[in-house]
Each structure stands twice: as C-alpha cells, then as structure tokens.
C-alpha cells in the first residue's frame, strides 16, 4: 500500500525525480572518474571508463522510471487505447453494442433516479434512520392525525426520544411588499420541537422551541428555509426581525434553517415554517385531522414493541374520545382507526405510497432489458472474437499470457459499457423529464428527479457489472484456442463450433424468454389501461376547462358568490364559450363531501340515517359537463333565489333508496336524519345518470346534488367552462376577465377536465407507456439477437448449404431449414418465458384493473408477437441461405 502511494505521488513529481536521478548518476560517475584520475588516467579517459563501467545509462533510466511509475496504470492506459483503436476500426459493431447498452443502462438509470428520490434518499437531518411516522389509517383520510393524539404520543418518552408534528406544506399567499400580483409560498405548520427533534440547526437566528407553540394564534413567528432565503431574499442577513405577510398575516422572521433542509416531505418542499398553534381552524379538536405525527425512536426499543405500544395508546385514546358513541355506526367507524409505525428516514411521501410498487416493478423490467442488451453485446463480441482469432493466436505465439488477453478483452468490454453509460445518462435525463410529465401538477411542489452521486454510482456500478456479464464469457471463449491451428487456417473455421454456437443460441433463447416476460407485462398493463379508458365517466370531458379561484382570506361566502356570479356573467358573454358553471367538490378534485339523509318511504333509511355523497353545483352544471337529465330538470338561475329545497339524484340513489321507481321526481328526501321520516323536506326535481366524480376506479355512490348556495359545503367550488376555444386562449380570456373584476382574486390549478381524468390514472398511464416501451425495446434487441445468430449460422454453413443445393435441395426447403432453426430457438424461449411471465403477472396483479394476471388473450398475443418478430428476424438469413450459389460456396471451401 505504501509502495503504491509512493508510486502514485511519484507520478506527479516526474520531472523533479528525473533531475534527482540525473544528479545522483552524475555524482556516481564523477566519483569513479576522480578515482581513475588518481590512478593516473587523463580526465577524458577516466570519464569514458566510468561511463563504460556504469553500463547503459538510458536503459537504466528507463528501468528506473518504469519502477518509479505505476506500471499497471500505464498498462491499463495502453490496453484502453488499444481497445479504443479496435472499437474505432469497427464502427458498426461499436455502434450496435454501445446503443444496446445505452438503452439498457439509460432505462435503468432513469427508473433508479425515481427509486432513489422517492425511496432511498435519506432526509438531511440527524440520524434519519431513527425517524418513524405514526401513520393513521381508517376513519377519515390516511396518514395525518389530530393534535391531541400528538400530545398523547409525546408523553411516551419510553418509546421515543422525541415526538413532533407537522401539517402538510400548503400553498399560501405571500407578500414581500413589492409585488402587485398575488404571490405564493409553501407554508408548513410545525410543533415547537420540530427542528430540535430532527436535529436541524439554524443557518442564522434561532428556530422554534416549545415556548413558541403554547397558545392558539399567539405566536406570529416564521422560520425560513435556506433556499427561500437565498432565492427570494438574496441571503439578506437583515431579514431577522423583519415582518412578512404570509397567508395574509404578519409574521416575524426569527431564523433561517440549515441549508439543504426542505422539511420532511419528499415531493413537497416547505419555504416557511410557522408554529402549529398559528394554524387556522379547530386545531385542538380530536376529530380534526391535520397533523402528521413523527417521532425519533429509541435505538434500544425494537420496532415490534413500538408498534404494539402504539396500538394500545391509540385504542386508549380513541376510547377516551369516542367511547360514548361506541354503539353507533359513527362510533364504530371512528374506533376502527389504527396507527401504523412506518420508517420515515427517507421522509414522508404520498407519491411513494401511490407509486412505490409500480416503480419497483418498472425497476425489475429495466433490469431485464439490461440483461437482454448484455446478451446482445455478448453475442456481438463472440462473433467478433471469431473474426479476431488470428490476431489472438498471433499474440499468444508472441508470448502473451491468457490472463493478459482476457484482461485486454475485459477492458474493451468496459470501454463499451462506459461509452454506453455516458450515452445512457443522456437518455436517462431525457427519460426522467418524460416520466415527470405523467405526474399531475398537484403531485408535488418542486419535485425534482435528477442524477445525484448515488445515481451516478449506480450507473457506474451497473455498467461495470454488465461489462463483466457480457464480456467475460466471450473473452474466455475467444482465448481458448490452439494458436497453431488458428494461425494455420487463418481463422476461417471454428474449433469446437458446436459448443460455441450452442452458447450463442442459449443467449438468444434467454433473450426471447425475457422478452416474453416484458411483452406479456406490457400487454397486461396496456390491457388494464384500455379497460380504464373504456370506462364511461358519465360526462363528456372534451372541451371542458376547469379551474379554482383563490380569494383573499377576509372574503365571506356572499362576497365570493357575488364575484363568481360576475365572472360567470362576463365569461358567458365571450365568444366561443358554450356553457359555464361550478360545483363542489366537482369532478376529479380528489375530494368528497358526505351527509346523512332519510328518505321517507324507503326501507333503507327506516331505522337510521344513511350516508350519501353530496355535491353542491351551480346552474347548468350538467349541461357544462355534457350530461342530460334522464328525468326532470337540472338547476336554473331561478333556483338561486328559491327558498324551497330541491335536489337532483343519480341512478345509484334510486337503486339504493327507491328501488323499482322509474321517475323519482316529486319524491322527497331529508338532510335532517334525526327522525325516521326526516325533517325539512328536499324535493327531488331531476334524475341524472351515474357520474364518476372521484376517479375512474371508484364506482359511483348514491349522490344527491343540491344548489351550491343551499349546501353547507365549506370549500370553494371548481369552475367549469365548456368552450370551443383552445385551452391556452380560454385561459388567457379567463385571466383577463378576472383581472378586470378584481386583481386580488387569483386563478389556481387550471386544467382541462380531460387532463384531470388523465391525472387520476397517471400511474396506470405511466406504467402502461413505460412497460410498452421496454417491451418494444426487448423485442427489438431480441430480434437483433436472433438475426445475428441466424445470419452467422448461415455464413458458417455456406458450404454445407451449397452442397445441399448442388445435390438438388429446393431453395424453399433450404430457407425452411434455416427458419426452422430460428423458430426452434424462439419456441424454446417462449416455453421458458411463459411461466416466468405468469409469475410476473401475479406479482403485478394489484396494479391491474379489469384484467386477470393470467389473461389468456394477452398471452396468446404475446406468443404471436414473438413468433412474428422472430420469423421476421430469421427471414433475411433464411432468404440468403436459399440464394446460395453452390459453385461459389464450394469454391469458397
């Protein structure tokens, strides 16, 4: 080791070392010459004699330099430049190999970047591996929990060294005092011990303590993220003590968090943090779920014990809150909530929950693609090895060891792999951008996927691994020859050709088998997506734009309604706009609103109220989304002023509450569920078909539509515009209109209804598209493999084929002979691949919608596609075989 170090440092002080050596030699010669002069020689002769005795000066220096340098590095460099020359001489081979590898490595790098970002990268905090998320399941929503539950867990210092809570990072208004348009930042509410438990230190100023989080609405403080401080405030140190308008409240800056820290959520970064007590709403209610509870576990307490203890704590907590209602449906539902102790060292990610499994499956798929690519390159290398037999034999005869030649081959393989990975990285970056396009805009705020050190290490690792995979066998094969024989026959014939051809064929069989898996998977996912696409959502999504409005906090419901009415009036007057309305929650907004009702005369509600979905909609809502009422009518402008309560119901409602009824109009229901026959009546005025409001995979529930102004839905409606305008033109028209009415109201989340539908199945779209791409890639690579092996075998058998033709074999028969060989390989590959793909189908069953993992039509199609591609790939060599001229072939021999 020390030797190596000395040699390496020597590399960098070359010139000085040379000077020292010259001086040393000069001293030596001078000393000897002086001796000889004393013995009576004249200076010239003495000098000459000293030189003679010393021996070859330059030889010595050369030997000295070799010794001084790092021979293996120099040899490596020589091998590499030799290899590069070889690759340049053979551009077709190099291109084919590098391209195959680049596609394989690029696909792996792209998918791995996502895996890395979502599943592997640790939070930049102290000992992130100790962090857990106390993830709530059951009841309302998932993940987040209530403030009282946080306080409960905080008591358990025997389990955790610290427990903290955080809201999600939400977009809120921000005003630094010098902008006219509405500006937004990501604000996250955190408990006082948040930074302390995470071990995040301030860059400047101070961070929160429990003292900053005592009383609701009494701590107007804010901590900035470093990025925000840099990007928006130019690292101004005078920011401490400054007052910022955040979410229309004035908060005083007390500090900036350490660089690199963006909060604990992977896909959504926080710009600002405020104390949890500053969050608006009923934050202290045990039924208000708004806080993600996280904790730092004690290293000595095993996870199983933490989970068991968390179960108990949760049960006791729920009993203390809902124990009195445990007999009611509501109480049972609330009491069924659980806490799941999850690892949180890699941060919280809702995208991971939705996307983790598909990513894992895609990772496996790209692994297979790379294997197929490696098999291709191995095949190319073997063919090349055959062509280079003479060169190899020559080098053997010149005394090179086998190890030396194998190493030379491996270095060439490594060069190919490295070239492939450089190109692959470019593919990967492009691929990542493409994949990000699938994500809905709401999936993350500043979610970025870019190759970091881990990803680059991964890419380098797989390229070296694949170099060994595809390089070693061909290297060993190419160098296992008898040099004398190889030199004699000029490398024209193959020694042990049975074994060699067998290996290449085995590679092709493997390629086909793996392609079957990928093509079958692609088929299943495509089938699943087609199934989703064929679902009728119940509305016509074409030409409908949707958007929401963000009003100043001070605005009341009436102010908003007034603004909405003006906007609708203004927009309706614009050319090209066919219809305009609004609804809450509206289609595909990822929300639902429920209410308990009684339906007089229905046995379903005779004993107790039943929960239904409620939608608050404006006039012409159904017209705007292209739905015609089956019976009765929808709401009109006149209904806005009516005092009588009215509703439109869907078919599911009729099936559930009024089975057998053709026309429910005129019937009544009641939102007052205290009495069996209900209280104040709501008159049903219309019936519409079932509309899938929550997503294609969520079946329609019994739904009651009421005029928005009469509903008690607390969130603002989504606006819907049906227009014959391109979305961009429509959007700018809306913005213009908004600006004229009131610049304080901002347009948020504009998206066409079609895009919203797409967003709701983005995982299915992405996995179907990518697996289709990887399947096609696998097919292409396998086709090249089949073609290569068949073409090679025809070349090798030219003489034999010539003889057969000379003896009277029909060209068609010859072609069939070759084709049959190819088909045999494919059949073998399919036979091996089918059970594998059935297993793969079972693994991905949970991602399939409306198609069984062993769907026969998909598998029959897969086999047909592979046979088709295989025949195409083998056809060219087969035709060439049939066209062999017997005389030529025999002369060649």
């Amino acid at each position, binding site marked *: 080791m020390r*030797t190596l170090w000395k040699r390496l440092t020597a590399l960098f002080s070359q010139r000085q070392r040379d000077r020292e050596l010259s001086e040393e030699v000069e*001293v*030596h010669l001078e*000393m*000897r010459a002086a001796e000889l002069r004393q013995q009576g020689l004249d200076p010239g002769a003495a000098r000459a004699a000293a030189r003679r*005795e010393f*021996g070859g000066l330059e030889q*010595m220096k050369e*030997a000295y330099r070799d010794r001084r340098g790092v021979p293996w590095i120099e*040899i490596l460099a020589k091998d590499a430049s030799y290899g590069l020359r070889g690759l340049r001489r053979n551009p077709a081979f190099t291109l084919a190999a590098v391209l195959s590898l680049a596609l394989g490595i690029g696909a792996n790098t792209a998918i791995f970047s996502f895996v890395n970002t979502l599943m592997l990268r640790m939070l930049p905090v102290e000992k992130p591996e100790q962090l857990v998320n106390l993830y709530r399941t059951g009841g309302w929503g998932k993940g987040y929990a209530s403030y009282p539950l946080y306080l409960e867990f905080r008591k358990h210092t025997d389990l955790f060294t610290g427990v903290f809570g955080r809201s999600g990072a939400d977009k809120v208004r921000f005003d630094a005092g010098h902008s006219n348009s509405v500006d937004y930042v990501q604000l996250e509410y955190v408990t006082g011990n948040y930074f302390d438990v995470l071990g995040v230190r301030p860059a400047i100023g101070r961070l929160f303590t429990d003292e900053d989080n005592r009383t609701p609405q009494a701590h107007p403080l804010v901590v900035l993220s470093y990025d925000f401080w840099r990007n928006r405030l130019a690292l101004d140190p005078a920011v401490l003590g400054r007052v910022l308008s955040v979410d229309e409240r004035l908060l005083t800056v007390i500090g900036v968090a350490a660089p690199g820290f963006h909060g604990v959520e992977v896909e959504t970064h926080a710009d600002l943090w405020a104390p949890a007590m500053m969050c608006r709403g009923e934050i202290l209610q045990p039924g208000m779920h708004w806080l993600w509870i996280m904790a730092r576990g004690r290293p000595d307490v095993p996870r199983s014990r933490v989970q068991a203890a968390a179960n108990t704590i949760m049960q006791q907590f729920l009993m203390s809150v809902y124990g009195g209602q445990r007999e009611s449906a509501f109480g049972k539902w609330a009491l069924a909530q659980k806490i799941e102790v999850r690892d949180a060292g890699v941060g919280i990610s809702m995208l991971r929950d939705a996307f983790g499994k598909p990513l894992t499956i895609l990772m496996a798929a790209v692994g297979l693609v790379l294997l197929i690519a490696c098999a291709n390159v191995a095949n190319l290398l073997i063919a090349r090895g055959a062509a280079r037999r003479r060169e190899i034999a020559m080098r053997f005869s010149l005394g090179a060891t086998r190890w030396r030649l194998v190493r030379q081959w491996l270095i060439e393989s490594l060069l190919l792999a490295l070239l492939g990975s450089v190109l692959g990285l470019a593919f990967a970056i492009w691929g990542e951008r493409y994949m990000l396009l699938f994500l809905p805009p709401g999936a993350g705020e500043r979610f970025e996927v870019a190759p970091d050190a881990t990803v680059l290490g991964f890419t380098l690792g797989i390229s070296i691994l694949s170099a060994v995979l595809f390089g070693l066998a061909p290297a060993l094969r190419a160098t296992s020859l008898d040099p004398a024989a190889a030199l004699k026959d000029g490398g024209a014939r193959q020694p042990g050709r049975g074994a060699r051809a067998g290996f290449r064929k085995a590679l092709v069989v493997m390629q086909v088998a793996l392609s079957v898996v990928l093509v079958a998977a692609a088929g299943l996912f495509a089938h699943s997506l087609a199934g989703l696409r064929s679902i009728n959502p119940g509305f016509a999504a074409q030409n409908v734009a949707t958007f929401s409005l963000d009003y100043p906090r001070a605005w009341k419901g009436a102010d908003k309604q007034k603004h909405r009415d003006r906007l609708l009036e203004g927009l309706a007057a614009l050319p090209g706009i066919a219809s305009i309305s609004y609804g809450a929650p509206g289609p595909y907004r990822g929300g639902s609103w429920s209410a308990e009702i009684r339906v007089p005369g229905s046995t379903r509600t005779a004993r107790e109220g039943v929960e239904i979905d409620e939608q608050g909609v404006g006039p012409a809502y159904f017209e705007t989304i292209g739905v015609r009422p089956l019976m009765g009518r929808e709401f009109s402008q006149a209904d806005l002023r009516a005092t009588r309560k009215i509703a439109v119901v869907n078919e599911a409602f009729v099936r559930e509450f009024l089975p057998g009824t053709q026309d429910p109009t005129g019937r009544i229901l009641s939102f007052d569920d205290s009495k069996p026959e209900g209280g104040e009546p709501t008159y049903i005025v219309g019936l519409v078909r079932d509309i899938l409001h929550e997503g294609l995979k969520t079946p329609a529930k019994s739904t009651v539509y009421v005029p928005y102004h009469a509903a008690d839905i607390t969130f603002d409606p989504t606006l819907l515009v049906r227009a014959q305008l391109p979305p961009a033109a429509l959007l700018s028209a809306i913005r213009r209109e908004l600006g004229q009415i009131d610049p304080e109201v901002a347009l948020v989340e504009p998206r066409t209804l079609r895009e919203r539908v797409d967003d709701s199945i983005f995982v299915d779209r992405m996995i179907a598209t990518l697996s289709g791409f990887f399947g096609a890639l696998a097919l292409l690579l396998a086709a090249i493999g089949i073609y290569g092996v068949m073409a090679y075998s025809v070349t090798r058998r030219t003489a034999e084929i010539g003889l057969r033709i000379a003896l009277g074999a029909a060209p068609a028969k010859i072609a069939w002979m070759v084709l049959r060989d190819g088909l045999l390989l494919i059949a073998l590959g399919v036979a091996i691949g089918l059970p594998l793909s059935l297993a793969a189908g079972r693994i991905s069953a949970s991602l399939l919608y409306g198609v069984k993992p062993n769907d026969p039509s998909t598998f029959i199609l897969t086999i047909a596609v592979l046979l088709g591609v295989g025949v195409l790939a083998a056809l060219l060599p087969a035709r060439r075989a049939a066209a062999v001229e017997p005389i030529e072939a025999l002369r060649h021999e």
Partner: protein
Amino acid sequence: MSTRNAKPDVLQGTLDLMVLRTLEAMGPQHGFGLAKRIQQISAGALELNQGTLYPALLRLEQRGWISSSWGASDKNRRAKFYELTRTGRKQIARETDDWERTVALMDRFLRVAE
C-alpha cells in the same frame, strides 16, 4: 502490449540481499560507495553494471527497507545516501533464512546427482 514485468530475474533477489547486507555492514552509503563495496566483496566474481544498482535501490526504498536522503560525501560533494530501515533489518534476517534454505536444498540435489 508489454511484457516488461514478465521476465523473472535471478540476480534481482540476490542483488537486493547484497545491497541490504552491505548497508548493514557499512552504515549509510551513497550509490557509488555501495557499487564499489559490492564489487570488492565479490572479488571480481560478479560482473555488475553499476547502473543496475539504481533501479534496485529504488525498489528497496519503495518497499520501505531502505531510506534515502541527500547529504555531503567525504569529499564534500552533494550525494544521495542510503540507509537501512528497521523493516529492512528484519528483511535481511528473513532473506538470509530463505537463501540458506535454497542453498541447502540445491546442495542436496547436487549431491544426489553425483
């Protein structure tokens, strides 16, 4: 392609031991002094190109058996002096053992052949 490392050199091992032993006997010494001394001891039986000594010295130094520094010779000339290190001293014992074993072994073979 290079084969420069492949040539085993019988002399190499012996030259190493000679240099180490000479340094042990004489103390710090410059290259010329070492060459002269080795030739004296071998009493002309060793045809040594003095130049080959220098790569050997570098090799020994890289292995940590000797160290070198620039100093003044007896004639007050700047020269590079070589000195045995502690591991070098241990190495002499080890190589002497090896060498004696080899000699004894060869000796036995030569007797059998008679």
